């Protein structure tokens, strides 16, 4: 690949087609199949955010892991720029240049033994983003600056335990951007963080997205942020996408019964005292 080819803007989409994942569940001597993801299709376009919402066990993380190539689909395809994505070798590495993941737990996803600089240096080297000591260091500083970690030079020397949860998640985001990714899969990126910094981090993702025209798959069970930070929402239930549409439409005018359940379960200050009334009415009915 020549340099011009490498740097040519690639504007294609990441397409998930009919994805299925079966897991084998063993109970005693017998084993059965459990379909975690059941024929899921969607398209991630540059500059757009798609939110995947659903309760634990609905299969949303499995979708993410398949896109990140941490899990092999039972059937179905993942297409990047209209081409089938590879499962191994150099082609897989090229795929990973473009598609990166940010994990839920910033305490587990960084190696406590290594410095922040090392975490960023690895992808820069592996994906040949910069060559030579100085160029790599400049790139590390640029990345840390992108995720608002200041001063970059000082932070590069720190180890994960010296950082707060929010800072760690910023490092994880910088690491995901390091290979020059065009698509980011963020699996509950803020759910382990304190409420007071969640919005800040989501806003940072939004800025990076705008500046680099990233396509983002935002996986969450928080419907409020899904609504505010994404263009399209996909609701997953037992491995299937049961509802999809523009984010405001899905939240304000839900069609599927499960979306309604999910919405009713989300805490809403507007419903102050309602639960108590409901419970009282319920108990009164039972007493009859």
């Amino acid at each position, binding site marked *: 690949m020549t340099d011009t080819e490498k740097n040519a803007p690639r504007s294609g989409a990441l397409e998930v087609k009919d994805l299925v994942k079966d897991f084998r569940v063993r109970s005693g001597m017998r084993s059965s199949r459990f379909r975690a993801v059941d024929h899921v299709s969607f398209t991630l376009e540059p500059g757009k955010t798609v939110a995947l919402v659903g309760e634990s066990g609905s299969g949303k993380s499995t979708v993410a892991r398949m896109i990140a190539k941490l899990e092999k689909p039972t059937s179905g395809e993942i297409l990047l720029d209209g081409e089938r994505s590879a499962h191994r070798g150099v082609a897989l590495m090229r795929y990973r240049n473009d598609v990166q993941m940010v994990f839920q737990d910033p305490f587990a996803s960084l190696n406590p033994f290594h410095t922040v600089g090392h975490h960023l240096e690895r992808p820069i080297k592996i994906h040949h983003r910069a060559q030579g000591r100085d160029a790599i260091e400049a790139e590390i500083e640029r990345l840390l600056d992108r995720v608002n970690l200041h001063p970059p030079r000082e932070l590069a020397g720190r180890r994960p335990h010296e950082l707060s949860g929010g800072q760690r998640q910023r490092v994880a985001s910088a690491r995901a951007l390091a290979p020059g990714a065009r698509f980011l899969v963020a699996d509950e990126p803020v759910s382990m963080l304190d409420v*007071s910094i969640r919005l*800040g981090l989501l806003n940072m993702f939004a800025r990076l997205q705008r500046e680099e025209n990233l396509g983002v798959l935002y996986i969450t069970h928080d419907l409020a942020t899904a609504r505010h930070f994404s263009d399209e929402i996909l609701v997953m239930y037992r491995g299937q996408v049961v509802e999809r549409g523009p984010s405001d439409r899905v939240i304000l005018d839900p069609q599927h019964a499960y979306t309604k359940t999910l919405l*009713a*379960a989300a*805490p*809403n*200050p*507007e419903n102050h005292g309602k639960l*108590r009334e409901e419970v009282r009415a319920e108990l009164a009915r039972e007493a009859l």
Partner: protein
Amino acid sequence: MSATATRPAGPLSLPSHEAYLEGLTPVLTATDVSIDYLVEPPVHAVKNVSLTLHRGEILGLAGESGCGKSTFAYGLNRLLKPPADLASGSVTFHDESGTDIDVLGLSGESLRVFRWDKISMVFQGAMNSLNPVISVKRQLFDVFTTHRPDMPKKQMRAEAQELLRMVGVDPDRLDSFAHELSGGMRQRVMIAMALALRPQVMIMDEPTTALDVVVQRGILREIMRLREQFGFAVVFITHDLPLLLEISGRIAVMLQGEIVELNTAADIYERPQHDYTRRLLSSFPSLTGDRGAFIRTGETGGVA
């Protein structure tokens, strides 16, 4: 007193808060509680906090990580371990029988008898609070053998089954181990254990944080139901302000070891008095309301 002059002013409260308290009887009073972590340098985790919990109410304790809310709750129940040290203050439990118990004065046997019987606790991290190597039954029986040593085995079994039924877990699961239960079920078992002796106060430290919204809703409903039935008071600790606003009567907002605002839930939502309360409220984009300022503005705001 000159000492009071240097002390920070109490929490901001509205007159409607006073009105709300009328007719309520206190069940637990903490006065000027200070808790330090005796490390180098010492950390003043809780600074002169006074708070009164009333019979049957749900009092929300909100604040970000590290604000001292869990430390304070542990102090109420005498669960602090070194290096934490309850430096000053008093905690009084007003028993149903009319006697007042000085919680900080308890020790040894009297403390053991008091704990769980009067105040029980549902701990943070539902997934890891149960003992993985003994069955649910033995853990529930443990409560009875400690506090009700005269109870016959048969009755213990019946009680344990009844407890599970109350929290919405199939009584057949009594012989299960923690790993055989889902996260939601484990937390329900924890609530059953906290309920076992019919305490007058239950302290819940982030009881639903690790659970997803649908399961969380089920557990909250169960807590509200049980509270209606048994009338215990709840201190509900979480950083999830929308959740607190929905279920609690009053909310205390904690910031850096102090309660900065104490008001009814309705007031906290509609008329927040303290800057920090407003900031905390604005950390939660509204689910169904206007998009307002939350349209991915970027950190600096409005640079789009």
